[in-house]
């Protein structure tokens, strides 16, 4: 056809991304990877094991995992209907509601804690009713940690899932309705599987944000070993007294997240591997 075709005699059979894209992606990866290598490089590996298996560290780890999983669960359970309503139903003030749900994203961490006080604290809007009706005091309790983490993590889930729902072709859902599926059944069997990648992505984002959450937690729930001292709080304190341990704990947190994210099979993130000829 033309000479470029001839030149391509030795072209790769597989589909490779354009060089520029790879280059830019490479820069981005390096940008993320370097700080971690830097961290690893500074970790006092000789004492790492003993610092890690310190009972205080283990307590913090347990609490962190527990709270972040709860926060993620709450974000998914309440965030999914919220995303659905936002994506699918036009109602006056929808944009304002959406904005409200995303504000905690920009709140400086400490202010987030103050805001939570204002709502759920002892002198907060809902503090007294919560205590009178349920006997719950959220500040200084593990529940408070979960609350703070949900508050900062959930917006990630909501926005990701809403975007996916908006991008979704609704024709399959309509078809499900004609087959006798209630909106709920259609949502569960047709819509949810279709937005699975976004659900996972959103849940991972929310979990990661909750797992690493520091400012709102410390402000709202305080820092009590075994009750509200999560890993990031332990790291922060260790930075004051024993920077080596802080680094070890951080690397440990990273390792856990690494395991979670690597463990996320591509399948859960959606897309078949058909497209990858390699």
């Amino acid at each position: 056809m033309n000479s470029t075709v001839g030149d391509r005699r030795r072209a790769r059979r597989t589909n490779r991304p354009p060089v520029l894209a790879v280059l830019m992606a490479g820069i981005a990866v390096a940008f993320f990877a370097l700080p971690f290598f830097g961290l690893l490089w500074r970790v006092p590996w000789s004492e790492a094991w003993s610092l890690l298996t310190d009972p205080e560290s283990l307590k913090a780890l347990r609490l962190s995992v527990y709270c972040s999983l709860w926060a993620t669960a709450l974000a998914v359970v309440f965030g999914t209907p919220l995303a659905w309503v936002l994506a699918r139903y036009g109602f006056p003030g929808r944009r304002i509601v959406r904005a409200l749900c995303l504000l905690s994203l920009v709140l400086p961490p400490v202010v987030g804690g103050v805001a939570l006080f204002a709502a759920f604290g002892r002198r907060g809007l809902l503090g007294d009713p919560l205590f009178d009706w349920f006997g719950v005091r959220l500040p200084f309790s593990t529940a408070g940690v979960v609350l703070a983490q949900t508050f900062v993590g959930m917006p990630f889930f909501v926005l990701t899932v809403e975007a996916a729902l908006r991008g979704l072709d609704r024709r399959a859902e309509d078809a499900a309705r004609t087959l006798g599926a209630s909106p709920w059944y259609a949502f569960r069997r047709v819509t949810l599987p279709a937005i699975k990648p976004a659900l996972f992505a959103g849940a991972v984002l929310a979990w990661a944000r909750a797992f690493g959450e520091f400012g709102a937690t410390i402000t709202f729930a305080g820092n009590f070993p075994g009750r509200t001292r999560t890993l990031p709080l332990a790291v922060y304190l260790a930075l004051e007294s024993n920077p080596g341990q802080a680094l070890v704990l951080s690397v440990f947190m990273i390792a856990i997240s690494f395991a979670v994210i690597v463990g996320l099979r591509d399948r859960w993130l959606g897309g078949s591997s058909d497209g990858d000829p390699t």
Partner: protein
Amino acid sequence: MSLHARVVAELSTFRLDVDVDIEDGETVAVLGPNGAGKSTLVKAIAGLRPLDEGFVRIDSIVFDDPDTGVFVAPEQRNIGVVFQDHRLFPQLDALDNVAFGLRARGMSRTEARRVARAWLDRMHLSDHAAQKLDTLSGGQAQRVALARALASEPRLLLLDEPLAALDAATRAEVRRDLRTHLTGTTASALLITHDPVDAYALADRVIVIEDGRVTQSGDLSEVTTHPQSRYVADLVGTNLVPGTIDAGVLRTSDGVSIAVPADSPDGPAFASIRPGSVALHRSEPEGSARNVWLVEVIELDVRADRIRVRLDGPIGLVAELTPPGHEALALRPGDRIWASVKASEVGISEDFSR
């Protein structure tokens, strides 16, 4: 189950306004050119597009009526739909697609799969039950869509070109199977198709929709013998020439005269000329035929046992030849030949549109 509906849907550049009535157990074919509004009609009856005016009533229950504000959700209408674009569930395999409606209506998983498997068998898709939807071929996917709609045995079926992607043999088979199904149940059906054979084989009655309105409806034979529009005439393969009859001669708006049977009533009418009654000649024919035109061969459609010739001349015409006739004439596109039609062979139908 009987359907009575007047469907008015206002799209930005298009208005659909048609009456549809289907009696108990009846199958009605909807024919019409592309963009006539057939798929829109299906969506409106299924409840996927609320009416702008009119009503949808099934048996005595109103499903949609903007005036009184009644609107029954699609999932409560028990209407099975085969969509023109299939709309299968890409994340399920073929079997679960077919089982979907049964499961949605509360059947247990194993039972639903059993029934679904039987339907796939009926559609010759047993080998493809476990295949992901996006790996099915076009015709396979269409059969899955059909099985999915039929499996939950709805009392009204809306079939939007359900056989378009099937190969000839499968098509005939599925068509037969569909007829058995439709006559074997009390279900009613509305069948959209571009293939008159489907209508002949499956439908009791035909509605022709053009540009959002019904232009003709009634028994099949009625519609085909008295085509009221260019579209229908093209469809049934008859030449249709509108004009005005005056003393046994129909005059078109272009000024062409066609001799028609002497007893034809005067006034606006269509002349319909069966392709088989058009004779072709290499030289100007002599004899009794009163309609003779010089025409040009535009296109030949050669089948094993008949040849259709599209002609251009004072009026556009389609002629049909037998293989021997074809061989004798040895026509090629571009040839200029003579076409003749006896006046007694010209059918007349009154033109009600004027």
